[in-house]
C-alpha cells in the first residue's frame, strides 16, 4: 500500500515497509504511523531515531532482544524493556517501529 506524502507517492512492499529506504523523511514516518494508528510522541521518536542510528551503523534492523538490550545501555533499564516498547508500539516494536523508521523488517523476526 503506497503512502502519499506532500503530493509524492512512496512505494512499499506488501507488508508496508518502504521499498526505497533513502526516501524516508519525518513526514513519511508520520504518515506510516498514522496508517498504523500510532500517535507519535517524543518517546516514539526517540525509538525511531535510535533504530535509524543503529541501521546507519550496522546496516541491519535489530531483532527485538537486541533492540531492548541496546536501548537499556543507552537510555537505562526503564526504556530498555519489552513492556516499554510494546506500550509504545503495540504490534511489536521491532516490526512496527522499524516500519515507521523506514527500515527493512528485522532479520530474525519470523
Amino acid at each position, binding site marked *: 500500500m503506497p503512502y502519499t506524502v506532500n503530493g509524492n507517492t512512496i512505494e512499499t512492499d506488501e507488508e508496508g515497509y518502504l521499498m526505497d529506504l533513502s526516501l524516508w523523511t519525518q513526514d513519511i514516518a508520520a504518515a506510516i504511523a498514522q496508517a498504523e494508528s500510532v500517535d507519535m510522541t517524543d518517546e516514539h521518536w526517540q525509538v525511531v531515531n535510535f533504530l535509524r542510528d543503529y541501521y546507519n*551503523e550496522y546496516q541491519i534492523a535489530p*531483532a527485538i532482544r537486541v533492540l531492548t538490550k541496546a536501548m537499556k545501555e543507552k537510555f537505562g533499564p526503564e526504556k530498555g524493556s519489552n513492556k516499554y516498547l510494546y506500550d509504545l508500539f503495540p504490534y511489536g516494536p521491532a516490526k512496527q517501529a522499524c516500519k515507521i523508521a523506514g527500515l527493512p523488517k528485522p532479520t530474525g523476526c519470523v
Partner: protein
Amino acid sequence: MSEEPVFDTQGVVKKFMYVNRRAPYGTIYPLEILESVLVAAAFEQDTSVAFLDDGVFQIKKGQDPKELGMKNFSPTFRALAGYDVEKLYVEKESMDARGLKVDDFVVKVRVVSAAELAKLMAEQDILITG
C-alpha cells in the same frame, strides 16, 4: 485437534558454526550466511562464525562495493556482539597467505590454526558452509 505445537523446541540450544570460505562479493553466499547467523542468534543458539580461505576478506576493513551495485555488509559483523555472537574465528593459514593481520579486520577475532579449527568444528552440532 489440540493446540499443542507439533515440535517442542523450547529451550533447545545447539552449537552452530557458520563457515565462510568465499570472498564477500561476487556470490550471494556470504550475505546469506550472515543473515542465517543473525537468525540462529535471534533464536539464542550457541553460534560461532569462522572465516577461512577467501572468506577472511569478508571482515577486511575499507570495503567499498558501490560500483558493484552491492551493499557493504561488513559493518553488520560489528553488530554480532549485540546478538551475543562473540566466537569469531579466523584461520591463521588463510590470513597469513593473504598478507592480512588482525588489525585489518572490522571485528575482534580469535586466530586459530587449521588444526585448532578442525577441533572446534568437530565439537559442533551443526556446520553450515558458504
